[in-house]
């Protein structure tokens, strides 16, 4: 439903268009079951980022503050991308396997 405005055609700047992020997508990641991290985390990632880089470098840098992170086996994790089951391929870039601007990646570890 459109917003009610004095004159037709009300609009303002759409602030978070993908072109405003210098080649990156915004990607949200969330480690399920670990609410010591209060919410999902926002990352600016170029779509060319390999999933391996996310799994091997980025996620550890974020989640190692949890003492339990060292025992996590991401290869055995369950993933969803934007609400659908997802089997990420380590060798592919995020953009090549369905990750878009403002996608949400959730994962469950044992």
């Amino acid at each position, binding site marked *: 439903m459109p917003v009610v405005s004095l004159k037709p055609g009300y609009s303002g700047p759409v*602030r978070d268009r993908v072109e405003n992020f210098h080649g990156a997508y915004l990607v*949200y990641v969330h480690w399920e079951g670990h609410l010591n991290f209060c919410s999902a985390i926002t990352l600016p990632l170029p779509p060319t980022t390999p999933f391996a880089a996310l799994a091997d470098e980025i996620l550890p840098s974020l989640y190692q503050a949890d003492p339990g992170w060292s025992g996590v086996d991401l290869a055995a994790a369950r993933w969803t991308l*934007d609400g659908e089951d997802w089997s990420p391929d380590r060798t592919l870039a995020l953009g090549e396997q369905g990750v878009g601007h403002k996608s949400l990646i959730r994962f469950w570890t044992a």
Partner: protein
Amino acid sequence: MVARKLSLKQKYGHFTRGLDWEPSYQKQEDIFPFATYEGIKIHDWNAWEDPFKLTMDAYWKFQAEKERKLYAVIDSMAQNNGQLGITDARYLNAVKIFIQGVTPLEYQAHRHFAHLARHLPGAGLRVAAQMQSIDELRHCQTQIHTISHYNKFFDGIHDFTHMHDRLWYLSVPKSFFDDATSAGPFEFLTAISFAFEYVLTNLLFVPFMSGAAYNGDMATVTFGFSAQSDESRHMTLGLEAVRFLLEQDEANVPIVQGWIDKWFWRGYRLLSLVGMMMDYMLPKKVMSWSEAWETYYEEAGGALFADLARYGIREPKYADVAKAEKGHVSHQVWSIFYNYAQAAAVHTWDVDDQHLDWLREKYPETFAQHYEPRYRAWREQAEAGKRFYNDGLPQLCQVCQIPMAFTEVDDPGTISFRVSEHQGEKYHTCSDGCRDIFEHEPEKYVQAWLPVHQIFQGNCGGATLPEVLDWYHINQGADNFDYAGSPEEEQWNAWMEGRRPAAFPAAAAE
């Protein structure tokens, strides 16, 4: 000669709406261009009944007297080092959130009630709106003057207007008010005067001010209670204004109901920050958020909505969700601030045993199971010298802008993720309430200035945290991080040491 005396009502009529006249040289719609576009139909502005019949002579007299009393307390606090009388320096963090988050809203209310005082076609409502406009300026200025004294000794207060325009958690109150002021005059009236002032503001002021009293902050109590005396007038305006809209035309009912639904949820989400202050920042606690919600929403709101049922108004949508969440929200918001104390101009700290006992008692259904283990783990990490901080930036709700920490109503272990699409782009919200608000007016919320996204666009001083904090004007190492080890803690301990009788420190040192 025998003087004829007009009744209070007749006199008040001449002194307010009697000043107004029907324009004939300019068109009504050119003088009041914003009066009709929201679809609200008013057939008879004269049907508006002013609940309080306050003329300017009485206004000046009462307000001047209130101000004399208040400033006497403020002066006395400055002269007597009143900051030493508070229960604990941690208490001051509630005051910091207040001046960073609430005081600028008082200011915005001042400006926008001036907008109503100019642009509402009904003279009676314009008079009420302009009194509220300067009242709100009063609240803003008395808060600044009161807290000015604390600013001399405590951190995080020093640049509150700059921070309000920029800081991540302050975009929550700012976007709330921007949402109201960017709406039409009737939505603003419903949003602020009714949904916020009448239905929800008691939750902000009454427990908080009573908490200030309980924690030795006499200055805040004084400005708070003094402001509340105006607030009662504002609340009454809110109730009568909504009643007036509902009585004027049946077609107004669904419009007003939609606004009540929206603004109840907007206000409720905003107040979750207040819940966090109440449950975590007051060293001596008056009541829990859950108890306050029961007293000031469930009881008072219940009576209100039962009364409005005659017009076809029902309780706000998702009030049941708010009720179901009341054992969770304050803890979830505290977790946000604990996660990000390195990037905030307030301190957080580890919850001690006595506090855990209180929380367990107040939240028997939820606390021990869902939150206590988390806090104990954090405390252990801190005791091991590894205070937990979250190094990633949070995902924010597109509408309320709070980090998306709220959980599913029936599953406190799972975050509630909602997503909508508009013109091919995804928008994430924290709840059904915020999702509905987005989907009702997507053209508005796509504009939201989300602090985390702005950082990644490069609009906030740089790519590193220290650069962003500089841009926020956070004094790093003082305004931010845990209370433990802060300059404030050191200062407070020195003060408390200084308060012991002279013989004792010497004995203790041996």
